């Protein structure tokens, strides 16, 4: 009886909380709804009745956004950059994590500290030197340079997260493989790689969001040229002196499609990935 009374009291106490949280949720939801609705409207309809449902569902705005700033090319460039960066990062982070997780003596700990230092280094501050480096290497405005840069900025977190996963693998597995004559690379390939799959998926998802969404370095290192610009750089080009807001927002929706797809398939993992990513910093 006592506990029943108490929980009713709490139910009433929570009313302001319900109200505040749902108000904030509305503030989040309204702009998102506005983007969907406006993608099917023209400027006059957007201003006169911003929150009304669109009267027709023509895809003209999407087609126009796609053609004016060549979003297709931007999506492909973004996809190339993201894929290359993911491959380089995993190819370098896996052996490094293995070395750290299974090293004897102090050197593993020192290397781990060195990577942890990366959390304190804002890549942003070093934007100009990075640009100069790309010119010096004769890789200015090239996708591979940008991918190498993105990989480098995500290596610290990737290495440290993967090393954590590898530490949980019992050493006996490796010992018996080594007794059978396996080399270090073979144990990494055939024992650690399969057993660290969950960790790799986590790192790949976390990095996907970073790579796909990057804007400022993409602008500086790849520029506005259609042949190299990513979708994130192509999108703001839709802003002109006479911006068609419906077209702009239709383009915005197109740029978000890959993230929606990944979110639909991996939404539980994404939360976990971002949580893990924030804990280590």
């Amino acid at each position, binding site marked *: 009886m006592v506990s029943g009374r108490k929980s009713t009291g*709490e139910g009433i106490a929570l009313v302001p909380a319900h109200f505040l949280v749902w108000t904030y949720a509305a503030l989040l939801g309204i702009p998102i709804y506005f983007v969907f609705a406006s993608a099917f409207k023209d400027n006059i309809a957007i201003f006169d009745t911003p929150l009304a449902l669109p009267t027709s569902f023509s895809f003209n705005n999407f087609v126009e956004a796609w053609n004016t700033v060549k979003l297709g090319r931007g999506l492909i460039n973004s996809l190339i950059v993201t894929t290359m960066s993911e491959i380089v990062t995993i190819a370098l982070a896996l052996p490094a994590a293995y070395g750290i997780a299974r090293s004897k003596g102090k050197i593993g700990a020192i290397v781990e500290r060195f990577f942890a230092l990366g959390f304190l280094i804002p890549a942003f501050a070093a934007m100009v030197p990075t640009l100069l480096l790309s010119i010096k290497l004769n890789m200015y405005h090239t996708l591979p340079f940008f991918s190498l840069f993105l990989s480098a900025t995500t290596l610290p977190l990737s290495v440290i997260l993967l090393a954590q996963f590898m530490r949980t693998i019992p050493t006996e597995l490796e010992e018996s493989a080594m007794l059978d004559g396996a080399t*270090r690379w073979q144990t990494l390939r055939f024992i650690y790689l399969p057993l660290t799959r969950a960790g790799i998926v986590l790192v790949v998802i976390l990095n996907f969001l970073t790579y796909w969404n990057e804007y400022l370095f993409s602008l500086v290192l790849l520029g506005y040229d259609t042949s190299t610009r990513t979708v994130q750089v192509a999108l703001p080009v839709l802003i002109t002196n006479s911006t068609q807001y419906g077209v702009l927002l239709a383009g915005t929706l197109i740029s978000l499609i890959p993230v929606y797809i990944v979110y639909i398939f991996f939404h539980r993992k994404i939360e976990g990935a971002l949580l893990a990513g924030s804990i280590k910093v």
Partner: protein
Amino acid sequence: MTKIKNEKTIFFVLPAIILYSSFMIGPLIAMFYISTLKWTYIIAPPSFLGLDNYRNMFESDAFWTALKNTILLVATLLPVMIPLAFMIGYYLSLKPRGHRILRILMFTPGLISMSATAMVFFAVLTPPGLLNGTLNNLGFSNENTAWLGSTRTALTSIWFINLWQGVGYTAVLMTARLESIPREIFEAARLDGASNWNRMWRISWPIILDYIGTVTMLQFLWTIFGGAGLIILLTGGGPGYATTTLGVLVYGKAFSENQLGYSQAAGVILFIFGLLGMILIRRFIRAKE
């Protein structure tokens, strides 16, 4: 037997260290060096200058306005955002009705790119946009404020966009952290008659204070570094210098005004500002423990 010898460790970690050093450590050191050069634009030949870039910078209004804006932004944003996110996070951890849909909604801004976020708010805040359109429908006739174009409202608009973007995402992170606390602690407190409000502030807050410190640092770094991209997209630092932060100054001096030396001097100050801010946040959290 199972441990790798030191020489072999080096072999495994070396490729990663090389890439990481040449793209992160190297450029950071180069920034300090370039800040002492007389260098206008990328292809012009640089020459040594000493500390004149710093003197020019300290004598310019742009720098002091940028510093003031940066401090104003973080000092008014974080004390609102972090407690708000904590309260929402606590609320979600109680699993009230609709918590699943709330979680998805809260998380969305964290997935959307800076570029897309900027486009959305450009359309919301432009004179013929969502905000003015709605105000007109509510009876404020002929509302046509350019929210991002007026000195009075530009920085406040940026502030709100940062809040919009950060609160929900941070809240979900805090929910996940709160859910890892053993339920028995709350059960015991509830039986002792502690209200939800007290369980939130007296029990949960101290337990996850360390994590709150981490999240605060993340948001701090995001606001001073990442936030610059959002401002560059939306206002370019204007009107005048109304929304110029240190990050925007670093970018603008290098790429719009062709003063690489000045830009990198501002970069050095921003870097130091970041370190000091993190030490300060850590001190603050430690003192509360």
